[in-house]
């Protein structure tokens, strides 16, 4: 083989003089071999690259969990993910010294009201777990009852298996999982649950199933089906956002799109949120998003009438834009619960 031995000499020396460990040496050796063949050795900072020193763990944590840190609020969610990260790191260290380890991450149940970020977090987790080499691809397949339950005997198992198959290497996100149990004994939903559970066993370690939905219904569902609780050992609750958090989300939405909220617009937003919160259609962050999108549309309708709008005019969202010009605000009614 055409590898020049002088290119690997330094690596061997580093290893032999105990400056690097075995895993690091093997990884570097591979890099040298690949480079020698004119290929690219891949990222030097990959997880597999080196022994887990405290600095490395800190750097990895910062890098891998950053998107999650950037989310507003969700402190409960963040601390659960933090403990999963710790589990993964410790298992990796155990593996390095040949102790028994388990690299799999358990399946999870996400509970919380609409718009509290369950889907958003699931998508991020896919990426995080892929970066930590827990999942091979980290994509998220979102399904609900209609995607799993079929029309005739056998159809359901087939549809559910197809969904599982599609999610291999990533996350299967089952929205309103309890809807599967709603039809009673003869309903095909049962078959979907059974197929799902079997698939989780057959494909242990190859995908993570996240079931999501309202807290109360989820608790009921998990208690109805003994064994379900232990199959979804990680429970993450997404609390409603506070008004301060919702306002912060509004600021971020504006900033991301080069808009800015005037103080009076923020006041208006606060007032609207207080009213929205009392309604059954309240959708937390989604409501804010809808209000903001409507406000940006209304801002355009207002600004088009200005003669020579300045840069500032083009950016500013005023209270009138937020209120939508009166009683029949475009965000009200079905608008605030619409899925995006």
């Amino acid at each position, binding site marked *: 083989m055409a*590898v020049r031995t002088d290119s690997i000499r330094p690596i061997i020396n580093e290893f*032999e003089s105990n400056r690097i460990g075995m895993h690091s040496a093997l990884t570097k050796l*591979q890099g040298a*071999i690949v480079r020698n063949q004119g290929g690219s050795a891949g990222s030097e900072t990959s997880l597999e690259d080196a022994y887990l020193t405290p600095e490395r763990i800190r750097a990895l944590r910062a890098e891998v969990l950053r998107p999650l840190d950037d989310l507003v609020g969700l402190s409960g969610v963040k601390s659960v993910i933090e403990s999963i990260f710790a589990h993964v790191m410790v298992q990796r260290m155990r593996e390095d010294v040949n102790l*028994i380890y388990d690299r799999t991450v358990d399946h999870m149940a996400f509970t919380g009201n609409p718009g509290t970020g369950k889907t958003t977090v699931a998508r991020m987790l896919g990426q995080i777990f892929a970066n930590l080499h827990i999942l091979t691809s980290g994509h998220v397949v979102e399904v609900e009852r209609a995607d799993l339950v079929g029309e005739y005997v056998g159809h359901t198992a087939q549809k559910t298996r197809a969904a599982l198959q599609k999610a291999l290497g990533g996350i299967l996100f089952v929205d309103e999982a309890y809807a599967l149990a709603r039809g009673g004994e003869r309903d095909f939903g049962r078959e979907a649950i059974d197929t799902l559970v079997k698939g989780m066993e057959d494909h242990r370690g190859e995908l993570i199933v996240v079931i999501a939905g309202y807290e109360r219904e989820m608790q009921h569902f998990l208690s109805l089906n003994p064994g379900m609780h232990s199959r979804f050992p990680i429970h993450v609750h997404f609390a409603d956002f506070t008004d301060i958090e919702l306002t912060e989300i509004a600021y971020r939405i504006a900033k991301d799109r080069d808009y800015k909220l005037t103080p009076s617009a923020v006041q208006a937003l606060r007032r609207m949120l207080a009213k929205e919160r009392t309604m059954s259609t309240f959708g937390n962050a989604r409501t804010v998003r809808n209000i903001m999108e409507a406000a940006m549309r209304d801002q355009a309708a207002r600004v088009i009438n200005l003669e020579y709008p300045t840069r500032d005019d083009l950016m500013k969202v005023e209270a009138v834009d937020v209120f939508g010009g009166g009683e029949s605000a475009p965000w009200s009614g079905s608008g605030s619960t619409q899925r995006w």
Partner: protein
Amino acid sequence: MCLEVARVHHGLVVGQPNVGKTLLCLRLAQASSNLVPLIIHESPSGGIVERRLHLKDAISTLVSAKPHTTVGIQTLALGFGVKVSERFLLDDTTGLTPDIEDQMVRSGMARTLERIVCATVILHVVDASAGLARNQLNRTDELIRSVSMATKVPYFLIFNKLDLAGAPEKAVSYRKRHRETKIFSISALKDIGIEDLLDNLRRASVVK
């Protein structure tokens, strides 16, 4: 560091300590009718000892349940072929592991690492009875596998100790997930699967 002998095939036997590398080498010699192999032992610091041993004696002196029985490179020839181009040398090596206490052993592992780029075939031995988690090799083995694959020489992954409980299932489930890898299930102790492995070595070493 590579022995530059023209067109001699060098099979490198690598793996973690105690997985059965040495016993496998001796079994392969036996199966290839080299019943009194010449065994050349090169210590980590370069000292060389040559001995010709009967297989039975070789097994009783070179194989043991103690990890790091082999420290250094231990070479023997397989008995097939008379032409030089068909000569096949097997390099038995110091087992690779991340926890190393002894400097001599560390140097032994350094000798193993440097041989990886010299091999014309790599035989990676794993203990199929030991903690294989969910169709995955442990990390050391996973890294040995990647570095071996990177060399682009023929790579054989050998699940040894098939005779022990749980081993066959693990080998089968691993094979299911890694169809692209050439996998052998053997027992060096019970002499199972050695002929097949030898056949494949022979075929992989036909001069091109």
